[in-house]
């Protein structure tokens, strides 16, 4: 377990997402990354019904933490639980219902480069490609501020100036002990952005 930073990598106009992913992967392999399996991060939203205040419950999974399930509320409160937590949700059907077509996931290859783990995932929202997320994890450290410069160097060689500053959700917690939940919050933020973008481009019928 170490510190992770997740960035959105924009797909230039007129280029296919798959192609950009391929270029990124080549790049990682060139600097010495070794492919070590694949990864999936998925997220599903549940909306509260019949409660006085409308609430959203986000359920995330990450293959990197196969035994865990992350539940996030609007305030950012994160509950880390067994994967059995999904079973509890089925008992809450009367109060929280899954929003249709909200299932979003980032899926791709996982590379190991010395102490770094690099993941290049293509994001799909209900089946259609939406963008690219790049995650870089530095395993030996748990304090973000202590390894940020090291990570920045690697990140900039990969994705350029996007990684000028730490991810916004991490900025406040640079000196705290890093937890896997922080990674999930970064993913969730990006997922929400993708969803919003999708909602703007495709006005509800």
């Amino acid at each position, binding site marked *: 377990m170490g510190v992770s930073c997740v960035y959105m990598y924009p797909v230039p106009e007129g280029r296919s997402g798959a192609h950009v992913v391929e270029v990124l992967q080549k790049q990682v392999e060139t600097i010495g990354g070794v492919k070590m399996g694949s990864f999936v991060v998925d997220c599903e939203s549940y909306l509260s019904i019949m409660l006085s205040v409308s609430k959203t419950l986000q359920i995330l999974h990450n293959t*990197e933490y196969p035994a865990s399930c992350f539940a996030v509320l609007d305030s950012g409160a994160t509950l880390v639980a067994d994967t059995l937590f999904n079973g509890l949700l089925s008992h809450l059907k009367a109060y929280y219902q899954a929003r249709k077509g909200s299932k979003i996931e980032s899926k791709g290859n996982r590379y190991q480069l010395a102490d770094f783990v690099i993941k290049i995932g293509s994001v799909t929202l209900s089946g259609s490609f939406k963008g690219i997320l790049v995650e870089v994890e530095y395993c030996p450290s748990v304090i973000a501020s202590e390894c940020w410069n090291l990570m920045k160097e690697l990140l900039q060689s990969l994705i350029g100036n996007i990684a000028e500053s730490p991810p916004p959700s991490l900025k406040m917690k640079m000196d705290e002990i890093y937890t896997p939940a922080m990674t999930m919050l970064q993913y969730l933020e990006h997922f929400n952005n993708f969803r919003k973008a999708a909602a703007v481009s495709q006005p509800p019928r």
Partner: protein
Amino acid sequence: MAAPSVNISVESAIEHQIQEVRYDGQEIYVAPLSMSENLSKLAHKIDFYKDESEEKGKPTSEGEKESDEEKVLAPFQPSLWPWDSVRNKLKAAYTEISVLYDVLNIVKEKHYMVTDPVNQDGPELKAPLQMLAKKRSLVAAAHILSNGAERLKRVQNEMASVTQENFLMELLKLRKNWRLKKVHNTILGELSYKSAGSRFWQGGTFEVLKTSDLAAEGEIVPRKSSLDVIIPSELEGVAYILVEVKSVVSDLMNITSATLKMPSSLGPVSADTYWQLKLETAQNVLFCKELFAQLAREAVQIKKASTPHMVVGNQILTNVFPGVQLSIVLCHHTGKEKKVNLSSEKLEHNHVLEHSLHQLLREVHDRNLKCSAPHPVNAMLGMTRKRRLAGPRAMSRQELMEMGENESLLEQILKQTKHAVLRIRSMHVIDQMAVSIQDPQLCAHWSCLNSSLESSVRVSVTSYGYESIRTSLVLTIGIDLIRVVMKDGRVCTLSFEETELRDLLQWQICQHHTHSIQHLAKVQGWQVLSGIVSSGFGDMEAYGTTSNVLMASPRSNVIVSFHSNPVSGSKLWVKKVEPSIETHHSPAVTANKWASLSGEFQEVNLQLLEGRNLVGKIDMLMARLSLS
């Protein structure tokens, strides 16, 4: 009527007949008969046959009335007036009442007689008679008691002799140590380790028998026990796991050695062994079978090994180190096999490893049974504590995988074997060197506390007479490598090859020499100009590096150079700085001619120097040179 002195009340004795009197004195009456019941009851009392003949001839006083009545009752009592007896009784009663009335009158009037209450005393009881009676009843009671005691004694005697009772006692003893249950008419026991955590498929059900059943067939055998057990045929005999570590000369594995070898101490169990021993042996057979089955399964499954493990019949062969192989053989001697020539090969059974194997399987059993208690208590059973935390702590895939890994028995025993082999090899090397090298002395201190996978030894190198100068190094012998911590704190890792250890020790001996000489320099006021423990220059040697030291005498007029190499040995050169001092004065230089030889340094023949050992010789030389 005048008031009488005694009142007498007259009443009928009992209204109803008493059916029973309870112990508490309560009387239970028969319910009074109703009119019709009474009638039929009375009618039943009549003896028809008898009365008929008597009545006929008897002239009745109430003839007319009788005949009337007879007519009425004719349908069921043709010849008898049914109320006859009643009337007779009433009549008699009437007479009695009349008499009673008269008596009462007589008593009451007091003209003729007076009645006085009479004091009625109980019969006088005589003391001797009473005593006699009591005595007799006591004798009777005593008789009953002694009879009972006699019978108990007889039963006790029978218990000791009769097998039936003995059998029960034995059964009780058996029950204390083994699990028994009764199925219909047979008693079945269980000798497998299932209740102790074993998951082996083979069961170990045995049957408990009474020996009297067997002896009934005529043969009278004096038996020690009246209880016998029948163990399943596949668990009969004696078994053990033979563990051998063999050095193979050829690369071919010796498969033929898997023939059964049975040490003479482990003979077959005779039929009339005591049941406890029988059961224990059978249990051991089962345990060995489970152990071997487990090892064989693992040997087939494990694919990681560089050379595959071989399972041939009842033998598992694996390579420990090149040229050394471990063979694990299941020896099961049922007593039915043909005699194998036992003396052909000496058994090199490794008891320690056999014991470790047993221990490992027992640990597996223990793990099967034991699970950490859940906290909070409604957490799932059978998970390790760490696994419970996996979800909430968001453990990574890597951590989870490490958690799931479980080392197999075979791998563990292989590791232990490797360590054992390596330890013995190192021991041999050190011992050999300690014996062959006289100067300096090698001394090994093995720590008595070691695990089955690690042990350590401290080797100290000293020279006789100069024990305060000591080079010591610690060797930690692991599974297939040796870690050496040297005097100066440097750590080096050696492989399992024994020559590496030998080289290292020889190099250390050379270092010891230079160290000792440096030490001497300090004591004698010499100046150490340079000291290199492994110098790169000098002649090319087969192995090892040279240690050398360069010193100047206190007056700085003599310079001594010492080289020590594991292959070419130790060499000493001396150089005089001031040419004015004649070299031949030094006894170390044998002749004047040496002074004019190439270079200024002159080699000293250490062999010819006086002294017990190298350090002593050089000590002596230095002492001489510092004066010159």
